[in-house]
């Protein structure tokens, strides 16, 4: 299967029919919701409903709808008119902007408490026209994102890197812009479920990123390290099971294993 980024520029790839298919596919909906939940878990925001968030590459709002469920106000940016039109049809709550994030995030300093981006920023690594310079676009994006976040603001982006070089390009641009952070890999052993999260802080945050159950990927030495040290990467499910065992040992009552074990539950409102 070839990657969408290699087929056409985003606003062409996500045309009317593709946007409609994408938005109404229940498998896509489920995966995007899971990754949004996971990003929010990593963001570790305080549990208040007074936060203003940005969703970068918001598409038709599959990620944004989760933000609304959690009680956040949000603004979403996307380059595809068809994706945004599908968002309008669904009457998403966030304010939608037609904008190319490679040209910057058009918000004044300190606007947002935090931000997410789900399955979008790998597009910035592509040069879709002869005069587009991915390096410049990435830097413009991260520079303006940095300033649009309040100091200590956090940003988590799930993305699909085509190769290690893209991971390097993205992280180094983020650092040049002043962010601190790195990459978290969920399910690193699974080809199908492996997910990359870029986790960033703009300055010092009162509440740290939530690194529970996470092993940070160490680039390059990674493979060596893994075979040498016995430290195995733990999936979320393994983590929960290990915690459960621990709790059971400690004599605490633990929910029975069921098919809902280690699945994320949607908070109810």
């Amino acid at each position, binding site marked *: 299967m070839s990657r969408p980024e290699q087929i056409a520029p985003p606003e062409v790839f996500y045309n009317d029919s593709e946007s409609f298919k994408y938005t109404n596919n229940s498998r896509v909906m489920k995966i995007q919701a899971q990754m949004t939940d996971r990003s929010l878990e990593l963001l570790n925001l305080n549990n*208040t*409903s*007074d*936060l*203003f968030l940005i969703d970068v590459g918001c598409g038709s709002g599959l990620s944004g709808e989760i933000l609304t469920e959690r*009680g956040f*106000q949000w*603004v979403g940016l996307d*380059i595809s008119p068809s994706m*945004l039109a599908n968002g*309008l049809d669904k009457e998403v709550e966030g*304010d*939608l*902007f*037609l*904008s*190319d994030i*490679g*040209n*910057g995030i*058009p*918000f*004044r300093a*300190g*606007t947002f408490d935090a931000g997410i981006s789900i399955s979008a920023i790998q597009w910035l690594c592509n040069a879709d*026209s002869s*005069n587009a310079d991915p390096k*410049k*676009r990435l830097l*413009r994006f991260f520079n303006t994102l940095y300033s649009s976040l309040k100091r200590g603001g956090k940003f988590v982006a799930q993305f699909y890197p085509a190769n290690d070089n893209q991971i390097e390009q993205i992280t180094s641009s983020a650092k040049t812009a002043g962010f601190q952070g790195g990459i978290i890999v969920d399910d690193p052993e699974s080809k199908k479920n492996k997910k990359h999260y870029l986790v960033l802080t703009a300055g010092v945050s009162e509440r740290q990123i939530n690194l529970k159950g996470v092993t940070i990927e160490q680039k390059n030495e990674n493979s060596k390290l893994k075979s040498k040290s016995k430290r195995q990467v733990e999936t979320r499910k393994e983590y929960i099971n290990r915690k459960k065992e621990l709790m059971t040992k400690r004599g605490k009552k633990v929910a029975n294993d069921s098919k809902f074990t280690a699945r994320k539950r949607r908070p109810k409102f």
Partner: protein
Amino acid sequence: MKFLTTNFVRCPIKACDSSPDSFPLKFQDTTLIQEEQDFNPQFIAAMLERLDWPAVVSVASDLGNNSLPSLKPENISWEDQENSQLLKDLHTLLLETKIVEGKMVCRNCHHIFYIKESIANFLLPPHLAS
């Protein structure tokens, strides 16, 4: 676009980054609607602190409302009953007032950005892209 967002959005053109005139944008030929939203006093109080009040007043005036106080209400705790009417009024202005059609003009470079079906279009022509 909600009124709230007008207080944060600025000209995306790189040459305007350091110009104080790239915010707020000037709103023209706008069509507004009122849309009911859940009232969350805590959010409104939190945003009030972050608002650039002169920009609130100037954009409200662009939209035909010249009745806002020129000074920002300060120290507004959302838990204080006394503030509830003020916070409700702000809620109506910030979250329930929506610009569905119109133009936004940068006071520095004079570029015009359009709002259509409530979506603001910030795409740049190639020669202005960064």
